[in-house]
């Protein structure tokens, strides 16, 4: 339909030479925009993939560094970790107040990492690129719980549990979780 339309538009343009009226200019403009959009949709994923290959490491390294800085800052402030997986405080102390604390994060591997993972799954073995993403997500969610506890004035968090689940799966087309999106959830009981 579009092709036929473009043919007639082009034919009329060619036959008339340089005497264009405003209608035809409008048609030409619309046509070129449509072609440009089409090209963009084809070219964009390609460039995105190249970008992912070259710069994803840099971006993820930046997040990792920020996380490490925050972790060491909290450690300096408190002297010890305020998250515990025990359901009772280690030191004998009086508890005045308690509440459930919840923190979460959703992470996904980059396109390049997904690609590497796909290749890796042919031969089997350790997928290093996914390891990094998972490790980052898990430590980030625990750091968030720590910061939430400090921010709201809780001394310690007891019985901390970390859960992992796949979310936002795409069931259609038989491709499960095409993007590899994972959610990490950390929760515990804050006491003071």
């Amino acid at each position, binding site marked *: 339909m579009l092709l036929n339309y473009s043919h007639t538009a082009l034919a009329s343009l060619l036959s008339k030479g340089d005497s264009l009226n405003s209608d035809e200019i409008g048609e030409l403009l619309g046509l070129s925009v449509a072609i440009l959009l089409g090209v963009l949709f084809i070219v964009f994923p390609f460039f*995105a*993939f190249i*970008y*992912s290959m070259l*710069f*994803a490491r840099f*971006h*993820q390294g930046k*997040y990792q560094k920020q996380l490490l800085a925050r972790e060491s800052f909290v450690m300096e402030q408190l002297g010890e970790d305020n998250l515990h997986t025990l*359901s*009772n405080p280690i030191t004998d102390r009086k*508890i*005045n*107040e*308690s*509440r*459930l604390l*919840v923190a*979460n*994060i*959703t*992470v*996904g*591997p*980059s*396109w390049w*990492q997904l690609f590497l993972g796909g290749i890796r799954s042919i031969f089997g073995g350790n997928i290093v690129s996914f390891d990094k*993403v998972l490790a*980052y*997500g898990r430590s*980030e969610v625990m750091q968030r719980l720590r910061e939430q506890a400090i921010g709201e004035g809780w001394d310690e968090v*007891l*019985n901390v*549990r970390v*859960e992992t*689940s*796949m*979310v*936002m*799966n*795409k*069931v*259609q087309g038989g491709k499960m979780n095409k*993007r590899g*999106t994972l*959610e990490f*959830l950390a*929760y*515990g*009981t804050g*006491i003071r």
Partner: protein
Amino acid sequence: MMTSNIETIPGFTITKSLGVVSGSTVRAKHIGKDILAGLKNIIGGELKAYTELLMEARTEALGRMMMDASQRGANAVVNVRFATSSVAGGAAELFAYGTGVIIVEG
């Protein structure tokens, strides 16, 4: 309504257990947010749109659990657990459950 994920509420005594209370919600993603998350996915890392969406949904599930508890006459929920599952394409079910109890101070 007091909640904890340990067996007791510190500083209180449980006088009566009222059984399992639960709350759940199913959330589908927003198409605009999905496109943004798809762009963020190119470089990987956190997908903030999904994080917020899921946290919002989980808060709602917790709220429904507390509503269930208060309907049964409980004034606290102990041993709260969370479960997440994918039920349909692009939707997630968030489920919170615990034991509704009546507590008294001391």
